[in-house]
């Protein structure tokens, strides 16, 4: 399957394996297309997880990862892409409706917006919180003191 995809998309896809698990690093330009192909033609009907990793030292700082599973084939695969800080990605909701909250969480924790998401707002942190905690430049003890003072009426959350 990977060979067929590589054949179609050439240098945009780099298939890799680690610890017996297959994953592919895909060019940002291929993004909604490759996911659609995986869903429609290769039967990856279940979007297990969408998440991101922040590499501040790299030029393309964020790695966005989709973990997909195919029920008919009993196969799991990861699709990764690398994007710049501030870049956005098309939402996968038209492909898998279950991507809704997963993408909201990526936005909440990393600040990566998904175009076409009907409800792009924070999910775990309160509305009006500033900052995206899972980024590497967000301290472990850091909190949004302004939000805490306004909403909880105390000096600081610590």
């Amino acid at each position: 399957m990977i060979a067929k995809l590589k054949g179609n998309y050439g240098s945009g896809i780099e298939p890799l394996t680690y610890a017996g698990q297959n994953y592919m690093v895909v060019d940002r330009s291929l993004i909604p297309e490759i996911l659609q192909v995986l869903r429609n033609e290769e039967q990856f009907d279940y979007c297990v997880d969408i998440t991101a990793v922040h590499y501040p030292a790299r030029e393309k700082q964020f790695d966005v990862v989709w973990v997909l599973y195919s029920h008919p084939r009993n196969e799991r695969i990861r699709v990764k892409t690398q994007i710049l800080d501030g870049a956005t990605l098309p939402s996968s909701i038209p492909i898998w409706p279950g991507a809704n909250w997963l993408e909201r969480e990526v936005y909440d924790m990393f600040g990566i917006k998904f175009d076409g998401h009907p409800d792009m707002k924070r999910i775990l942190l309160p509305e009006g919180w500033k900052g995206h905690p899972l980024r590497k430049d967000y301290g472990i003890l850091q909190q949004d003191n302004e939000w805490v003072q306004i909403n909880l009426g105390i000096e600081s959350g610590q």
Partner: protein
Amino acid sequence: MTDPNTTLSPLELGSHDKTFLDANELIINMGPQHPATHGVLRVILRLDGEKVLGLECVIGYLHRGVEKIGEHRTYTMFNPYVDRMDYVAAVSNGLGYCETVEKLLNVEAPPRAQHVRVILTELNRIASHQLWLGTHALDIGAITPLFYTFRDREEILKIYEKYCGARLTTHAFRIGGLQYETYTGFEKEVKNFLTFFRPKIDEYEELLTTNRIWVERTKNVGTISAQDCIALGVTGPVLRASGVKWDLRKAQPYANYKNFDFEIPIGENGDTYDRYLVRMAEMRQSVSIIQQAVDALPEGPIMAKVPKVMKPAAGEVYHSIEAPKGELGYFIVSDGSTQPYRLRVRPPSFVNLQALDAMCRGQLVADVIAVIGTLDIVLGEVDR
């Protein structure tokens, strides 16, 4: 001080303001403090009288930043945090985490450790389903099952306490195997528990399965089709009750589940009654697995050779297990140091809760309570 967001998302029913009797729609808050929401869950309901037109869940009240903490602890130090996410089924969380790190380190737990892990995890599945049954029945109005299930659950918690010292957040497993050898009399006690417990499942069924009130309140409530389940990413007993015979213990076996013979119960309609039947059948299957495991417990070491200072090679791994609530996955990115670079937990309750909206449309408010209970969510896992 108030949350300005009370409008429902655009996914809700279009723009109709007036309802059937030409009255306005009612937007009601089922606030974070509520006896039936299984934790701090806020549900904003849009109602036409008592019929639900749509709902929105607001979560995050129990968000503790576990994934961020994971980046600042070593792999062994993070192990106890994992129990606190799905605090009802702590042993399963530990199993998933330890197995993922073992994959990163490329070690495998020895056979005896895997066997004991299966026994403890299946006991945990029974304990989790018992708690689910007690609280779900209580929400719907049946008070008695709560007492029965919690009383019987005590026996399992006693075994855990004797084994690792804790009842709820057990920290039972270590990376590479187990820390504690099973105590003298472990096998006998587990076998006694099984003999004690088998008639208890029948007792619970006798209370509820053919009870007319129960059937009326759960049949055709919160129905979801198999296709919707898969599209929404719902897993666990909810998916199986909709007819999809899929269980990670069989599809992608882990921790020597291959050696045990058990069935995967499925339902037909995907309503609340089927989910109840599936979970009751799962308890019986768990009893069967534990019986097989405890009869065939091998001798041997309980800990693999794992370095004291764990520095897995740089790489990333995704591994998931069949927790009592669904697919619990861990995605760990290692950069070669002693602490994970990114530790992502894919919680089953979080993804299952997305389906609440689809399951409740057109139902009554009382059914929303039943559906929240039947999804078996634990807010510790939803929010992490």
